[in-house]
């Protein structure tokens, strides 16, 4: 069975129901956003509301710094890829297409609705007049575009997904059935390559998250047992970061060896080289 990562546009209440229906129909573990955030927060000792804000609160002048947001979302990505590597799972999160990239047995689904439909839902849920509900939908979409650009350097669009499902005039059961049928197609079945790739990605995300939880930016890749980690850390924090990498890697069976490189991007280093 493939894993399903699903995103839904704001005010489409069907998103959680659809994810639950797919999980039931396929016998997969269900991960709602709240569960994913709670697990990530517990694993990395971070306040859940920070993770929630990093994923959903739009960037603002006095809000969360972009670097902090990216670091926090690393923890959510680590939790998603851990679940995918662990077996059949259905996860309902924002930016589903980007959370566990490059794994062929992950079906990425986007649940969308028309602006009218979403505005009606927003008006009902928030008791707003139609014009205000429509403004709220537009603001939500702009926020998602901005957050996506900060986190993944691109907007979250239909083109990033394997399957785009319109909820208009369709029952949740019909939508669940379409997703389950697509997930059962041979293209989305696990292969030796994709299972190994999922385990390696989960290991890489786990290393990045371990460092991110301590405020250290890093990018990691794992291939055939070798973990290559590039970390941005001040000289005073490098021994701490190296210990974190060693301790984390020792718990991950996909990692046999680690190569750790430091990236020095201090402005004064570049300035000195130009003199």
């Amino acid at each position, binding site marked *: 069975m493939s894993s399903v990562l699903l995103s839904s546009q704001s005010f489409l209440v069907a998103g959680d129901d659809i994810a639950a229906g797919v999980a039931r129909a396929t016998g997969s573990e269900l991960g709602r956003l709240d569960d994913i955030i709670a697990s990530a927060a517990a694993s990395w000792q971070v306040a859940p509301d920070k993770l929630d804000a990093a994923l959903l609160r739009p960037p603002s002048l006095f809000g969360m710094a972009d670097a902090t947001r990216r670091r926090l979302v690393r923890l959510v990505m680590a939790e998603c890829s851990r679940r995918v590597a662990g077996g059949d799972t259905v996860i309902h999160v924002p930016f589903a297409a980007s959370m566990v990239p490059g794994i*062929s047995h992950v079906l990425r689904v986007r649940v969308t609705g028309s602006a009218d439909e979403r505005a009606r839902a927003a008006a009902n849920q928030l008791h707003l007049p139609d014009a205000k509900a429509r403004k709220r939908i537009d603001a939500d979409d702009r926020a998602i575009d901005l957050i996506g650009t900060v986190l993944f350097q691109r907007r979250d669009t239909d083109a990033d997904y394997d399957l785009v499902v319109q909820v208009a005039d369709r029952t949740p059961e019909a939508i669940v059935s379409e997703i389950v049928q697509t997930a059962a197609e041979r293209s989305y079945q696990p*292969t*030796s*390559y*994709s299972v190994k790739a999922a385990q390696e990605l989960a290991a890489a995300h786990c290393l990045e998250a371990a460092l991110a939880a301590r405020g250290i930016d890093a990018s990691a890749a794992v291939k055939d047992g070798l973990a290559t980690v590039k970390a941005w850390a001040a000289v005073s924090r490098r021994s701490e970061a190296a210990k974190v990498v060693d301790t984390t890697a020792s718990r991950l069976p996909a990692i046999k060896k680690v190569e750790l490189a430091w990236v020095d991007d201090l402005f004064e280093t570049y300035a000195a080289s130009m003199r």
Partner: protein
Amino acid sequence: MKEQIDVMVLDDEPMVGKRLKVILSRMGCNVETFEDPRRALERISDKRFHIVVTDVVMGDVDGLQVLDRVRACWPDSKVVIMTAYAMMAMAREAMAKGAFDFVAKPFEPVEIRNVVARAAKELGFDLLNGGQ
């Protein structure tokens, strides 16, 4: 007499064929190796191989064409695609065309043994316990 499982290994790199022949023969498979994909395609038309293990990038004939030929001639046979250029899109294409599995090179002997054993099991052969 116990029926042996026939396996074709196709890779334009001779060393891969040699190594896989040793590994798979030890499991009890009857292995034929090919380096020239055109000769392999002719052989597939003549003889049913239960399992075909093929590289994907081999000059003018690629592994997906081999997969097509096997599916056309022997729909029950299992095809395992191996490649050094593993990508999500390629894995999906191979699976959509009916490959049994997709393996990225380099792999450990145990990985290919497990894949072939799984394919054999689907055909009714028990390679891990040495019987049908």
